[in-house]
């Protein structure tokens, strides 16, 4: 029994009508982990993915190409709130695992306690842990090798160690033999990063499954309250022209793993009416602080993200890490314009950018826009989170100076462009208005949160949507709390055990 890939079909082609045991909406960390688990259990699976299937040879090299080919809606999604902060997600087979830095962090123990005490979800700890053990082996998780660290990551470690930052370490990532090409954000053309389009998705096909690409799901098909398939219309990967319709019928169940912004919308469009749907959106908002060094750092040489500290996760509620960005993005990230901007850009080789991400407690909502099927994310950080945000900047500033930076560029509107070592105290009074910062929302949670109470959750602790049969959500949208660490491993662990339970049902 061999499966196949079904790419875009134009309006002049026959519509697609397929029947399988399970259909999985989305092919990112959650969708691919669920699909391969179902396929290994002997089920016939179809993955239905909104984006096209691009192999490493198809990956773009430039940031422009990444926005065009790999990002959801050209990366133009921003939060609606006091500040317009970008919400970064991919739209391609492999989902965000294609454009992220493949950081692997196990679900912290206290998260399971929180889920149990605050949301009535228990019994996950050991099973998620076991699934994560296996995923780490399969996806060749390893520490960033010495030859791929690059100066930015090395300096970050040096600064953190100097200041005795807790849990300062070179990252463990789903990367096999990183060559330090600095191209994580555009997709790893060297096939070193183990994004799901290179492993779990093709394995699903090898086991007799299907991958339907360029196929955004419009709605789930129900028979009474049982999910029996999905339907939608193909969209051309380049022209965005509508193609023919598709229907994928599922004899046993539907798994929705379309991302935090799209999974709630798929359920809403399908007539699922639960009070908590689209609510309790959370994120890791963060920003970068540049350090200016005497000698060239060449941050784009080496792993895009290679160092992190998770030691501030509980207090004040932050994670710190390196993030190398190419000249295309630095150009817009530095403040100013005209000749002044050009002078600033000339320093690129001497800049290292390190970031913080806030384990924010603020919540927002995801809803559908009035025009079209785009998600609208309403989200603003409260004062306590903005104070954490500011503390993160102070820590990064001190870390840069401890590592030998001569100056830092905090990137706060209304503050001096550069600060020297004796001016770090100015950050103590940095504004708490989110509009003063160029920030980004990297990790998203919620929208279909799991829990015991139908009034405050969308799924139970097995990912099953309340009040429906055969309908499971298996992505970060079920996560009801802010993890404070990279969520990919948690998403994969949860999706795996939810799929195992579907097989056993």
């Amino acid at each position, binding site marked *: 029994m061999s499966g196949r890939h079904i790419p875009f079909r134009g309006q002049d082609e026959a519509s697609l009508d397929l029947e399988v045991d399970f259909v999985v909406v989305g092919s990112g960390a959650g969708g691919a982990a669920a699909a391969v688990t179902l396929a290994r259990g002997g089920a016939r699976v179809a993955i239905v993915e909104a984006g096209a299937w691009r192999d490493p040879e198809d990956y773009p090299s430039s940031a422009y190409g990444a926005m065009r080919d790999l990002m959801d809606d050209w990366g133009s999604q921003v939060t609606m709130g006091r500040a317009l902060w970008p919400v970064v997600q991919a739209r391609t087979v492999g989902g965000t695992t294609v454009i992220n830095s493949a950081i692997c962090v196990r679900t912290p123990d206290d998260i399971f306690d929180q889920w149990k005490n605050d949301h009535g979800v228990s019994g996950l700890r050991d099973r998620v842990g076991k699934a994560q053990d296996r995923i780490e082996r399969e996806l060749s998780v390893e520490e960033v090798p010495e030859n791929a660290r690059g100066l930015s990551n090395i300096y970050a470690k040096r600064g953190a160690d100097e200041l005795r930052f807790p849990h300062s370490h070179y990252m463990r990532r789903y990367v096999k033999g990183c060559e330090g090409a600095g191209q994580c954000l555009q997709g790893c053309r060297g096939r070193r990063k183990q994004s799901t389009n290179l492993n779990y998705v093709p394995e699903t096909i090898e086991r007799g499954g299907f991958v339907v690409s360029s196929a955004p799901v419009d709605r789930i098909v129900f028979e009474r309250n049982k999910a029996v398939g999905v339907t939608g219309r193909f969209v051309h990967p380049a022209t965005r022209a509508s193609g023919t319709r598709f229907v994928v019928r599922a004899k046993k169940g539907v798994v929705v793993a379309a991302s935090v912004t799209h999974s709630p919308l798929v359920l809403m469009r399908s007539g699922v009416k639960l009070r908590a749907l689209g609510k309790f959106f959370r994120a890791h908002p963060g920003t970068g602080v540049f350090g200016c060094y005497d000698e060239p750092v*060449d941050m784009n040489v080496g792993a895009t993200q290679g160092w992190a500290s998770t030691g501030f996760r509980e207090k004040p509620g932050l994670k710190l890490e390196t993030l190398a960005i190419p000249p295309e993005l630095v150009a817009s990230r530095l403040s100013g314009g005209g000749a002044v901007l050009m002078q600033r850009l000339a320093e690129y080789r001497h800049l290292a950018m390190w970031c913080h991400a806030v384990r924010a407690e603020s919540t927002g909502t995801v809803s559908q826009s009035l025009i079209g099927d785009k998600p609208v994310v309403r989200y603003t950080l409260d004062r306590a989170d903005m104070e954490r945000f500011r503390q993160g900047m102070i820590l990064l500033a001190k870390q840069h100076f401890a590592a030998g930076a001569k100056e830092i560029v905090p990137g706060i509107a209304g503050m001096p462009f550069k600060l020297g070592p004796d001016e770090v105290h100015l950050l103590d009074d940095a504004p708490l208005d989110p509009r003063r910062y160029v920030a980004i929302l990297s990790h998203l949670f919620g929208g279909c949160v799991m829990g015991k109470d139908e009034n405050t959750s969308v799924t139970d602790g097995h990912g099953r949507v309340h009040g429906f049969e055969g309908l499971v959500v298996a992505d970060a949208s079920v996560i009801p709390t802010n993890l404070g660490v990279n969520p990919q491993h948690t998403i994969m662990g949860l999706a795996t055990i939810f799929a195992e339970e579907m097989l056993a049902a």
Partner: protein
Amino acid sequence: MTWLVRAAIVMLYPRVGDWPGAEDCDLDAFLERFRRETTALMWIGVVLGSLVFQLTPIVTIFVPLPASLLSKEMANHHAERVSTTNIYLLRQSVFLVKLVAGMVWGGHPSVRERFALRPLPPDPGTWRTS
């Protein structure tokens, strides 16, 4: 409207000394491609941002002229002020233009060479069709 976007980008990323500006980076070909490939919403946003850039010298440097009619020195002054203004929506509008302009400038081989980076191979723009 491409001319409007072009004018804003050239003023935001001018040629300085021997450093190439956006106009030295195959800007026209880039804008043609960008207009063709991007979403309508993104293009409208960039055009509006460029219009804001063009019309706001009166706000930033108190000169009642469109940005294109400013002297080089005044244009530089305006570009700096409008990119750092305290009026958030104004700053964000221009930020979008800066973001797009950064793609053409920062990705160009002549700029990458200055940063000791190899030229980027072309984006294939391909995907699995079978």
